């Protein structure tokens, strides 16, 4: 398989690091793949720009950081400005129409998805926003199955929250597929 390098970027509290850990963990535990995940740490744990790197492969991963992602998610304007120039030609650039106004042309498949709006309209709880984003991401890379994501989620969250997470994941999958045509 082609090695997949992803960057999830946004601001603290949007859950991009959690999302990165979940997809990488799902790949390792339930897809029999190799994955690494890392993030930039700052002294402040909340707020500010956040960036998480994920590499998924079927062979050993040595250098663990992502310089040029095949798939880049930008959930704030600041993240978009900072990271969109790093996209690998031909890769996916995923933004949220609610947070990001795209302007520059990049040699990538731009996917501007109304993820935040859909979560608020259909679920009403921003806490599952990152899971909706994950749904969109897995619809594009097609190597981690939704049920694997759900297995990881079930091991991490209280039982009463499983349903809305599932709903958010499905929402993301649908959005991703819709705009992927």
């Amino acid at each position, binding site marked *: 398989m082609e090695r997949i390098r992803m960057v999830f970027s946004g601001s603290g509290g949007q859950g991009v690091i959690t999302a990165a*850990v979940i997809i*990488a963990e799902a790949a*390792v535990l339930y897809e029999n793949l190799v*994955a690494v995940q890392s993030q930039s*740490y700052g002294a402040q744990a909340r707020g500010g720009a956040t960036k998480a790197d994920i590499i998924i492969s079927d062979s050993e991963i040595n250098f*663990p950081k992502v310089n040029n992602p095949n798939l880049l998610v930008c959930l704030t304007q600041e993240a978009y400005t900072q990271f969109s120039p790093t996209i690998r030609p031909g890769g996916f650039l995923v933004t949220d129409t609610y947070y990001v106004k795209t302007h520059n042309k990049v040699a990538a498949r731009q996917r501007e998805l109304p993820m935040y709006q859909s979560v608020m309209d259909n679920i009403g709880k921003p806490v599952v926003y990152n899971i909706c984003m994950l749904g969109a991401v897995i619809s594009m890379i097609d190597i981690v199955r939704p049920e694997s994501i759900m297995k990881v989620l079930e091991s991490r969250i209280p039982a009463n929250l499983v349903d809305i997470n599932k709903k958010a994941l499905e929402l993301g999958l649908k959005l991703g597929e819709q705009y992927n045509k």
Partner: protein
Amino acid sequence: MNEKIIKFVQGNEACVEAAIYAGLGFFAGYPITPSTEIAELLSVRLPQTGGKFLQMEDEIASICAIIGASLTGNKVMTATSGPGFSLMQEALGYAVMAEIPCVIVNVQRGGPSTGNPTHVSQGDINQARWGTHGDHSIIVLTASNHQDVFSITVDAFNMAEMYRTPVILLFDEVVAHLREGLTIPEKGALDIVDRLKTSVKRGVDFHPYLPREDGRLPMSDFGGIHRYNVTGLFHDMWGFPSSDPKVVHGLLRHLVDKIENNVYDISRYKEYFLEDARTIFVSYGSSARSALHVVKNRRARGERIGLLELQTLWPFPAGIVREKCSEAQCIIVVEMNMGQVLQQVKTAVDNPDKVFLANRIDGELITPTDIRNIMRLIQGRGV
């Protein structure tokens, strides 16, 4: 399904799992980035196994507490980063002098001083060797991925018992915080060295500092049947202070020899494509990951390039480095400091002029591109 337990964890958690696997019974520490996850996880895990976790008032107290706990028969550990490691140096020397097994994890950050707490560095190599005062020898181990973090941590506990000495695990921020897969070995899959206890019977004189013929010193737990003295002063076979030149000379020689005479047993390393390599990277920790990335790419193009990854940093495996690099035309030490292992490699090999440094010291992980650019400069090809 696979029977083995696979986890997706940070390097710090791999260290924690390994410590418990090795029989850790007591941990004392003080929160400090980027090692804190070790303390947090052990506060959960240790009491589950009946072990004890203690958050002390500072790093000095932390290392002192584990040394005390070790004397009662526990396997012990503390974890810290640069500033805390600096504070621990005096007690580290105490553990060397009193020959008390313990494991000290230093997850390196950028230094000196508070430095660069959340960023990677490998600047504590020489501090780990010479941080405490006086002549001594010490074991320092490291690893570049989580499976190796696990096995080297178990090794650290084993060597601490085998040689009755503190062992330092010198990790770096990238390995500590990176998440990747870890397979927990089944019980019994890795050898565990238990505390060697004296067979001297109750009522018979026990000499805590009289080595057996094989050089090892059996111990007796504090609170057990033998009462003896432990001190940081030079001491005789009873553990009683002595400044008799013969005693001082004999003890210092013993402390150094018990490690330096076993350098081959203590040496852990991995080699990649060294058989016909003309260019050899010598690296360790997370920088070895970048070096290996370059090696694999270049090998795919037919270049004769290889990697010697060191896992034992001290005692420095000079003989192994010399032997493995004997045919190399160019040796490049890849590390994230200003040449601390470089100096050792230069001393080890026959021709120090063919040893170069590829480094990065700005808190970012050295990248394969960095290494390739430095190689071009070494080869006189410009960037």
